[in-house]
């Protein structure tokens, strides 16, 4: 047993987190910043933060992740990191020449109290920021929220580039939240089918799922441009996908630039995708084409074909709030039973949403925000499940408890394909259901007696 010390009996813990279902803000800020075209993320703190975040993102996306750091020393920790950041800005523009540097703070620089906008002003005055280049900053102290909060804070900093113009450009802002590059691509494809002209931000497609061609572009073709971000203030509306990841940026565009917004769930599964497509055609004033009806019908068809294998199967999930909310709805909609859910990200609203979504099912759901995987494992020991869904760290629970396991979320360190195949939208729903079915039936085949082993399902 790999998690051999985890007892079945659950005791209250107030101080120690064991096997977290979250990580810290800066890595989210770094991922979001990679979704800006020509952007070099910069970590204002010790160089270890940057090394860890780059490693985590690289291991997940299997793509180059360039990012710089202020490399704090003991001295900068005492006297502040201004000198380091000023030097970094000069070096970065001289050596790498990005369009944008997106700086996020760390627990270290936040505890010292470094003020990014004041340092940016100084850099501009010193003339180290070339004409036409952009600096943005997000405050992402690691001791508040989680990687999801950090992502949201950087997305908000991106939205803050938008200028109120009073004019409308006919475009719709779509804020996809922390999803895979392939998911972002799929959202753009759906929007194109609907006929909505959208600005997607951040957009890591074309950045973190690039080709191998013998050329290394430190700043690949993908990503939302600064010009597009500035233009977001003239959009006719904003759709924010996910309360935790995307709502703050949407609300900022609303208050700052009077761009009305709707906060939707991430489009995982039939119903959430329906709501996304419906909201998009309403705000863009278009008609949903038959292609989309056809794709939707295919997903309904697959649900009906597979329903017999899903019915009342118990599922445990861990991950991030926006993803788990949408996925819970999806599972309930196909008559599976999400029984245990944990996110490390704080937010009582998460627990309320999950309880609402599972209301009417003949069991009381175990749900915890600011929980950890140690607790989830204990719940599973007390009430076993048929399927576990979460990031790679779930494989240890899955092996010990012998549960079929689907890797979904961040980080996925031991499998590939998640960068290339979406799970959002109707097409993404098809792929996800295929994964669920494979996991369940591979197990059935493995466990079947010779008498009961069958060719046709």
């Amino acid at each position, binding site marked *: 047993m790999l998690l051999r*010390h985890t007892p079945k009996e659950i005791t209250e813990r107030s101080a120690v987190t064991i096997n977290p279902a979250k990580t810290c803000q800066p890595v989210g800020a770094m991922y979001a910043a990679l979704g800006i075209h020509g952007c070099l993320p910069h970590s204002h703190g010790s160089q270890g933060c940057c090394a*860890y975040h780059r490693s985590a993102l690289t291991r997940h996306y299997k793509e180059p992740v360039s990012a710089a750091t202020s490399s704090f020393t003991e001295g900068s920790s005492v006297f502040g990191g201004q000198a380091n950041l000023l030097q970094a800005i000069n070096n970065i523009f001289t050596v790498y020449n990005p369009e944008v540097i997106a700086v996020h703070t760390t627990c270290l620089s936040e505890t010292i109290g470094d003020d990014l906008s004041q340092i940016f002003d100084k850099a501009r005055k010193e003339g180290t920021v070339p004409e036409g280049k952009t600096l943005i900053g997000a405050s992402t102290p690691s001791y508040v929220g989680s990687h999801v909060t950090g992502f949201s804070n950087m997305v908000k900093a991106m939205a803050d580039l938008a200028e109120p113009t009073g004019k409308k450009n006919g475009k719709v802002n779509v804020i996809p939240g922390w999803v895979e590059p392939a998911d972002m691509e799929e959202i753009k494809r759906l929007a194109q089918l609907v006929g909505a002209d959208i600005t997607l931000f951040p957009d890591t497609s074309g950045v973190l799922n690039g080709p191998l061609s013998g*050329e290394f572009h430190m700043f690949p073709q993908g990503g939302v441009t600064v010009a597009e971000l500035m233009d977001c203030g003239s959009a006719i509306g904003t759709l924010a996908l996910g309360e935790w990841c995307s709502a703050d940026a949407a609300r900022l565009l609303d208050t700052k630039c009077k761009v009305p917004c709707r906060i939707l769930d991430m489009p995982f599964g039939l119903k959430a995708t329906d709501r996304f497509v419906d909201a998009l055609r309403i705000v863009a004033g278009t008609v949903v084409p038959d292609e989309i009806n056809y794709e939707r019908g295919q997903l309904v068809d697959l649900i009906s074909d597979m329903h017999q294998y899903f019915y009342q199967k118990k599922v445990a999930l861990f991950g991030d709030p926006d993803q788990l909310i949408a996925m819970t709805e999806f599972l309930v909609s196909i008559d599976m039973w999400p029984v245990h859910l944990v996110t490390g990200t704080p937010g009582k609203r998460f627990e309320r949403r999950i309880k609402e979504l599972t209301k009417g099912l003949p069991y009381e759901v175990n749900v915890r925000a600011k929980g950890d995987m140690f607790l989830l494992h204990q719940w599973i020991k007390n009430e076993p499940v048929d399927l576990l869904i979460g990031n790679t760290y779930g494989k240890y629970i899955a092996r010990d408890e012998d549960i079929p396991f689907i890797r979904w979320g961040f980080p996925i360190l031991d499998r590939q394909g998640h960068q290339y195949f979406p799970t959002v939208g109707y097409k993404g729903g098809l792929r996800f259901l295929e994964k669920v079915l494979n996991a369940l039936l591979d197990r059935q085949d493995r466990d079947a007696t010779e008498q009961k082993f069958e060719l046709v399902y």
Partner: protein
Amino acid sequence: MATAKNKLVQWEPTDIKKELLKKYPAKVARKRAKQILINEALENTTPEITANVRTIPGIITMRGCTYAGCKGVIMGPTRDIVNLVHGPIGCSFYAWLTRRNQTDAGVDGENYMTYCFSTDMQDSDIIFGGEKKLAAAIQEVYDLFHPRAITIFATCPVGLIGDDIHTVARNMKEKLGDCNVFAFSCEGYKGVSQSAGHHIANNQVFTHMVGENDEIKPGEYKINLLGEYNIGGDGFEIDRVLRKCGITTISTFSGNSTYDQFASSHTADLSCVMCHRSINYVADMMETKYGIPWIKVNFIGAKSTIKSLRKIAEYFGDQKLIDRVEAVIAEEMPAVDAVQQDVLPRTQGKTAMLFVGGSRAHHYQDLFAEMGMRTLAAGYEFAHRDDYEGRHVIPNLKVDADSRNIEELEVEADPARFKPRKSETELQSLIEQGFRFKDYDGIIPDMDSGSLVIDDLNQYEAEKLVELMKPDIFCAGIKEKFSIQKLGIPMKQLHSYDSGGPYAGFQGAINFYKEIDRLVNSRVWGYLKAPWQENPELSATYVWE
């Protein structure tokens, strides 16, 4: 845009150095110039390089932090100690199972390596202090697991807000009674790289565990293996070979280690140092305090493994052991030779670059040499001058603001436990026969004249080097992997070995030969251009026209 298409073999090393520095602001160029060395044979000395100095802000470095060196590298592979990180959640999360340290806890042994422990500090802890939460967390860990030891790691904000983790540790150790609790002041901002963290970790291991258990362990030819972390199972293979030779490993610092191994390590009769950078000072302290001599070994590469085994046997000087070692070599080598002969026609004459660690950039050159591959450029991420130039420079190393605040332990002979392992005459006679204790000449003397030695290589320089010199393989870490491979050059991780290993010992050499053969000869590198990109012009007409 960079591309590695055009191989410019005619470039002189001095031109390459110039190219690397060209784009930098003057101040950066001046600093980097001292860390980029063109190797040359000097009469009685090795050329001098600048190392273990600050990373330049904004220059994309390969380095990590002090915490990573302490928690990740040294303490990460300790399985029966609960490693509790005091800080915001990220630091503990990123060091959770990501270094591929393998361990063998048996069916029911203690193993906390699969767990991740953190006090998950919140803003209220930063404002009001985190000591109470830390003490409560230690109590909760103890109540749940009753481990033999709990260690505490400071992250950046802990040092800033002034939490006294050492006092908390002392108090909790006293309170719990049967659990050793101690702490590491390994805030990420200390020092200039992981190296400071190794030192902080090793000092505390030495102070709080080594020497605790005087019980004499069974076995002959007892050694400590220092600086071997069992990445990808390296330590398992070394253990297998040593066991086969009849050599007893009392402790490994710290691959596949247990608390008791550290506690008993002072009962060994020889310390063998693998990674000089991360642990040479422990070997020194073991000698001063307990009288255990040390030698440098290297189990990376079949020849180096043979050399190291013979060296250990020579130290003990027992004919039985010497014969046994020769028998093991004779038994192991045919399989190694067979694979080497198989890959050689496909690897001979190819070139490599290695930028990793504090020892591996040196050690792995031996393996490449066995495959007929030449190292064009190499350097370390976090090493010091002695790892480049040899131990003779140690007395002259400059102490600067960053190295000054990393504690050097003052150690003296333990009145009860110090025991010379060999008499003065025995030692002298070994030395006269050419046996070298505490020897490490560094990477530079082993590299070709005209090759490049570069300290703390960064992303920009890596890309330039590959572009200009187009090696057949590049070795570094995960952060560098894909930017290099985008250029069409295979990249091998030598921190975590990608998903491979072991690469140490005899079996490891076989694995490495095969792996490098696979990488440098993979068909995929021939697919980078589509046919219409290679021949864009329509030069023929269709037959039906």
